[in-house]
């Protein structure tokens, strides 16, 4: 077995040194009754190239974006990842260390995560960021729990234009802590209904949560929402599932957000059937001690050289145990580092360019598709790289027909919004060429 170096004679020498005759003796403390008497029911070992062949065959059963035109977003975005990211992240020095508990021999990871925290702040307009969370939905849930800790209140007002899975996960996390949720509807512009928000807000509310851009691609006007939340002493929580949008959209921090969380898989990592992903979590300095997750801080060594350490661990489970701000331990360092590579590769100009390109392509598509008989945009507000398309025909049937042309045309909204059962959510990124969009339009015209 190529992953297990010790040979029989190595083992024999070790057994002798230990003073036992067999490895079994080392397991003598396991009660006989619970010793497994048969081999595991796992297929026999495959050699490297048999296995690679098997995996290629398995992978070929999935329709990948190299072979299909994909217009799916909805919280998982198919952005281009520059080649260097994959090369750099495959360096064993990034791939194979543990969480940087020993700073002297972990400065690479630590500096990269410090850089990560920095750009998250710059992007979101916030003051502090942790070193990553699992992904966007659970980060949203953690934001709710943090708001509860900060305010001591149990109510949550959340927009129905927040990703349905983010809402589900928030409920799943929060219900055992007595948090109650109130959902507010969206308008015909495809954004959160601020009048309804105002009605829902009161002095029992810990936070108001919206998504930016929202699940329909709509661009919420954050400032008045922030004002409304702050008016009742609630925190304003903004979820960003598509951070590429922040290349051109005003930062949530500038609009009054108290906590910004989101999802960073689109920044260099790819879709990967939804994971691994990257939860980010940023807030204002005054709330640092309420934050979940790891924090990297800058300091100096005994000789005065700048360096980085994990810090403020007194918030965390391994120090505070049941009083910790969260139970999170392993998070998504490597994905955070990949996203850092992405952000540094793109720079301010690249982030602006890619955001603009998404905006323009989606606008082109919205315009093009909306002119086809039997299709029109469902909402009339501004959108980023996604929009809702109402179909005369059954959306499910439309999608099936598109599949025949190797086009995955979007998401049936019926799955999450019965009232939008006649709608598709269509996403267009910089990876969708105009030809693809035109092919989609043509296919829809014929479908």
């Amino acid at each position, binding site marked *: 077995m190529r992953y297990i170096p010790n040979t029989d004679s190595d083992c024999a020498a070790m057994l002798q040194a230990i003073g036992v005759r067999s490895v079994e003796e080392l397991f003598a403390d396991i009660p006989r009754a619970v010793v497994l008497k048969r081999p595991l029911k796992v297929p026999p070992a495959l050699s490297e190239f048999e296995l690679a062949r098997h995996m290629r065959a398995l992978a070929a059963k*999935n329709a990948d974006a190299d072979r299909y035109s994909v217009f799916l977003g909805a919280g998982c975005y198919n952005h281009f990842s520059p080649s260097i990211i994959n090369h750099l992240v495959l*360096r064993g020095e990034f791939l194979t260390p543990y969480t940087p508990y020993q700073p002297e021999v972990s400065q690479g990871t630590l500096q990269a995560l410090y850089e990560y925290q920095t750009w998250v702040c710059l992007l979101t307009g916030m003051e502090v960021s942790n070193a990553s969370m699992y992904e966007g939905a659970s980060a949203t849930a953690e934001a709710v729990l943090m708001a509860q800790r900060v305010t001591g209140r149990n109510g949550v007002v959340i927009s129905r234009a927040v990703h349905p899975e983010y809402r589900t996960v928030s409920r799943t996390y929060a219900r055992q802590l007595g948090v109650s949720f109130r959902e507010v509807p969206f308008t015909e512009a495809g954004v959160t209904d601020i009048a309804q928000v105002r009605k829902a807000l009161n002095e029992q509310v810990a936070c108001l949560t919206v998504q930016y851009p929202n699940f329909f691609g709509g661009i919420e006007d954050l400032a008045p929402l922030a004002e409304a939340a702050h008016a009742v002493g609630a925190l304003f929580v903004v979820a960003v599932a598509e951070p590429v949008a922040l290349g051109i959209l005003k930062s949530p921090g500038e609009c009054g957000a108290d906590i910004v969380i989101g999802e960073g898989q689109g920044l260099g990592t790819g879709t990967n059937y939804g994971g691994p992903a990257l939860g980010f979590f940023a807030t204002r300095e005054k709330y640092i001690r309420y934050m979940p997750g790891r924090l990297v801080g800058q300091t100096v060594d005994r000789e005065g050289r700048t360096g980085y350490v994990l810090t403020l661990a007194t918030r965390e489970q391994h120090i505070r145990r049941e009083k910790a701000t969260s139970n999170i331990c392993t998070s998504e360092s490597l994905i955070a580092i990949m996203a850092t590579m992405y952000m540094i590769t793109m720079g301010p100009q690249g982030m602006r360019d890619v955001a*603009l390109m998404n905006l323009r392509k989606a606008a082109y598509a919205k315009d093009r598709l909306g002119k086809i008989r039997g299709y029109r945009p469902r909402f009339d507000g501004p959108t980023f790289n996604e929009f809702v398309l109402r179909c005369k025909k059954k959306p499910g049937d439309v999608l099936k027909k598109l599949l025949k042309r190797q086009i995955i045309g979007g*998401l049936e909204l019926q799955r999450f919004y019965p009232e939008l059962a006649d709608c598709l959510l269509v996403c267009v990124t910089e990876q969708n060429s105009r030809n693809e969009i035109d092919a989609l339009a043509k296919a829809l015209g014929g479908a």
Partner: protein
Amino acid sequence: MSSTEKTVGTRGLAFNEPLAFEQGSPGRIAYSLPASDVPEKRAEALIPKRLLRAGIRGLPELSEVDVIRHFTRISQWNYCVDLGFYPLGSCTMKYNPRLNEDMARLPGFAKIHPYQPEELTQGALQLMWELEQYLADVSGMDRVTLQPSAGAHGELTGIMMIRAYHESRGKPRKKIIIPDSAHGTNPATSTICGYGVVAVKEGPRGVVEPKAVAEVMDQDVAAIMVTNPNTLGLFEDHIVEVAKIVHGKGGQVYCDGANLNSVMGISRPGDWGVDAIQINLHKTFSTPHGGGGPGAGPVALKKHLAPFMPVPTVEKKGPRFTLDFKRPKSIGKVRAFAASFGVLVRAYTYIRTMGPSGLRRAAEIGVLNANYILSQLRGVYDLPYDRYCKHECVFSDALQSKTDIHTLDIAKRLMDYGFHPPTIYFPLIVRGALMIEPTETESKENVDQFIAAMRRIAQEAQENPELLRHAPHNPKVTRMNETKAAREPKLRWTPGDRHAGD
């Protein structure tokens, strides 16, 4: 350091590298995008101006080679499994096979979207379904949810399901029993799930005694969270009895499966009476830790908990695989989409590489290596629980602290010798703990080199304690001022910061 001369550790050329944010020049670029093939409308024409920003101020402007150098240089400041022995106890720093990385990058796995129709993701679903079968058999359980993103996330999911189970039978109950050798995630998880924590002490043999559990077990206790093998590296040999006591009062047995690697193929939590257990794929199943994730923490369950699994589950209907969202008793979801799929691909690849006998042998050799270290350092370092161990052995600095040398000094000195330190000061019940987990992917020679270094350090502690107090000497930086870091938190670069390199 002449004294480390013939060991693995030495010094060589390294590169200073400031923060990326302190570098670059306006207008420099490292990216490329195609020319626009659609009308180049101004953003203001599509989005009200008040919602727009000028740009992301502060991001650096570098060229491609600058980015490559930045990350190549800083990467070299890291210790990692690919460079050497990493005996971090409880973290199972085994070798992370490169083949797994290749497989996870196949376009058919990497470039697929979670909302693609099922007929276009049959390969992904099949992989998940098969992985569930494998993990169920390894753990001796009935079902497995693949959704959780790490060990602690699995604990959370498991305890939520237990809570839902109790609720379905009337009330959620109030408390969870946790031995005090437990990892911090266990009590933290209990709190998030709305439970109080009842501590039980391990007995003199380092394991939980049935009596102690019986004393605190009552109708208010929802579950016990027991780590087995535990964080002392010991098998909880009363686990079957403990489970009976807990079950007797209607409680559930949750096992923290972080250390499953040492019993895989040899004994199964399901057979011990465990109702739910998370499996850390980034430990037992070789997926890389990446400096702190991504991981995955599937939870294996007994049948009676299955109705509460998060949605979707993966089901097989004839030759077809489907996602099942219609589970009325489900706790809901603990993350968006199905799972940390890329991590599952790696773990699946590992299991198919190892096969049944390989998995068992991994457990055996890991345990053999740990016991070998235990036997060779016995007497050199204090051994609070002198029994055969499983995946790891736990020493303390009791012998060295006589000369005022502490676990931290020993840990830092190991770096000079070219080794990563063990887990230190954990578990909390051992004062000055040194928790050493070699894993099965280390050869006897590597383990011997480590033992030799540990012995020399013990000697140095007597002969030259200053050397240890000022360790490490070989890495690029030495001990960090952690107090300053915590007292004057500096958690990000801000435009205007002085160059950190200065």
